[in-house]
């Protein structure tokens, strides 16, 4: 009986093996935007690579790369990426595409941030009005960007009162919280456009060059983790920087709006 159960258990665990798979840690914004749903089937059709996505914040993606649990990472936080390469965890950093961050907030705009000239002004008016603001608070690329933007207004979120709520979750979950609280929040444009529970929220401010959001691809260094699938990671990089990828990324639209712009340099 027990032997039979064990055999059954074993049979159920054997998953059909794929021809060529690799694990890629990506940021929640890349996945929540829906772009991955478009690119992954194309990658599989063109190259035969089955890309297994681990959708996490940039902080965790970098941890996964450091411990060799993924073959490459696709993230958006320049400082952390440069450190990743400098410390030898990644072989190099390749820019792929960019989108931008947007300030989302309640339609009535209690802090009057809509009239701002710059993102600096917009955040300053929110801080002065002590209007409820939801922060990712999860060490993700978006969170790091938000903290950097606060710093450029000479403010530190650690000094903020209860109007500043660090929720410690992904973009979608944080947007859900902001929607429930009618709060301001910094989001990447794609996640916002694709978000299904907007409630009373609207796009309040965008377009400042400071809100530029660059995505980069970093293969994990096989010298550090010999089991890493470096060859497949390199083939994926070739595809991500190809003209086919340019067309797919540039033509990806949500509700008629272009969300990502391809900017990989030809090597």
């Amino acid at each position: 009986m027990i032997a039979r159960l064990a055999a059954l258990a074993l049979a159920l665990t054997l998953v059909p093996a794929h021809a060529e798979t690799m694990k890629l840690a990506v940021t929640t914004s890349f996945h929540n935007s829906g772009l991955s749903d478009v690119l992954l089937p194309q990658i599989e059709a063109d190259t035969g690579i089955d890309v297994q996505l681990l959708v996490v914040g940039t902080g965790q993606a970098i941890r996964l790369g450091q411990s060799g649990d993924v073959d490459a990472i696709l993230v958006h936080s320049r400082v952390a990426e440069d450190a990743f390469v400098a410390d030898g965890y990644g072989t190099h950093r390749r820019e792929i595409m960019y989108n931008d961050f947007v300030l989302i907030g309640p339609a009535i705009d209690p802090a009057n941030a809509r009239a701002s000239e710059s993102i600096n002004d917009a955040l300053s008016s929110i801080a002065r009005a002590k209007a409820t603001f939801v922060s990712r608070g999860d060490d993700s690329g978006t969170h790091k960007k938000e903290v950097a933007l606060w710093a450029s207004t000479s403010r530190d979120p650690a000094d903020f009162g209860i109007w500043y709520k660090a929720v410690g979750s992904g973009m979608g979950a944080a947007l859900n919280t902001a929607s429930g609280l009618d709060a301001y929040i910094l989001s990447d444009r794609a996640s916002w456009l694709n978000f299904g529970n907007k409630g009373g929220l609207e796009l309040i401010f965008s377009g400042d060059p400071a809100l530029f959001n660059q995505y980069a691809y970093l293969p994990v260094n096989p010298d550090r983790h010999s089991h890493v699938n470096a060859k497949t990671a390199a083939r994926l990089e070739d595809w991500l920087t190809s003209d086919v990828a340019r067309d797919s990324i540039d033509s990806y639209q949500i509700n008629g709006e272009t969300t990502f712009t391809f900017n990989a340099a030809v090597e």
Partner: protein
Amino acid sequence: MDEIAAGLVAALRLIVTLDSDLVEISLRSLQVSLIAVLIASAIALPLGAWLAIHRFRFRRATIAVLNALMGLPPVVVGLIIYILLSRAGPFGGLGLLFTVKAMIIAQVIIITPLIASIAHQAMRDLWAEYHDLLISLNTSKWQRIHTLIRDGRRALLTASLAGFGRAIGEVGAIIVVGGNIDHATRVLTTAIALETGKGDFALALGLGFVLIALAIGVSITTHWLARTEKDSRW
């Protein structure tokens, strides 16, 4: 409230059209939880019976710890297994992180104390009843455990079903060790977490209703197979 109705509609649409993604993640949910319950039951049911009849020094403490472990926070179990299975961890060489096997390991750890605790409680009551008989027949310890398990199978079935219930609805541990990878480690609960994150509450609720239906289906099937609650039998 509209969202709950929309969720029901979404669930119906998914089921009626036999959505291929839904079928895939539902089967994977069943696969992970059923294997976890089989393994955990193989450990926990004899353990529960053994604890009921065996007297040893730290028995009370063992049972207290076992009962307390019923409340193991799944996310902590997930994190510990994650660290152990990570390439940088002691079992990294096995390459098990972000696989179905890692999810099963996590669930076995979460539900074994639960199944063992319920089994122990049921076996203890049965043992009080059988004690004199089995002792007077001069049975071996293994024979006693065997008799208890055989005659207490209905209660043990409930113990295993409780374990299954906890496993199939669990998300904290398996999302950490499985990674919620599409077509690899995505199951119903992690898909629900994902759709909630996207703000698509209708689809998330729809998946939730499918999950509840699945749990009910497994429970009914098990009772039917075990022929419990039939009017002529007790």
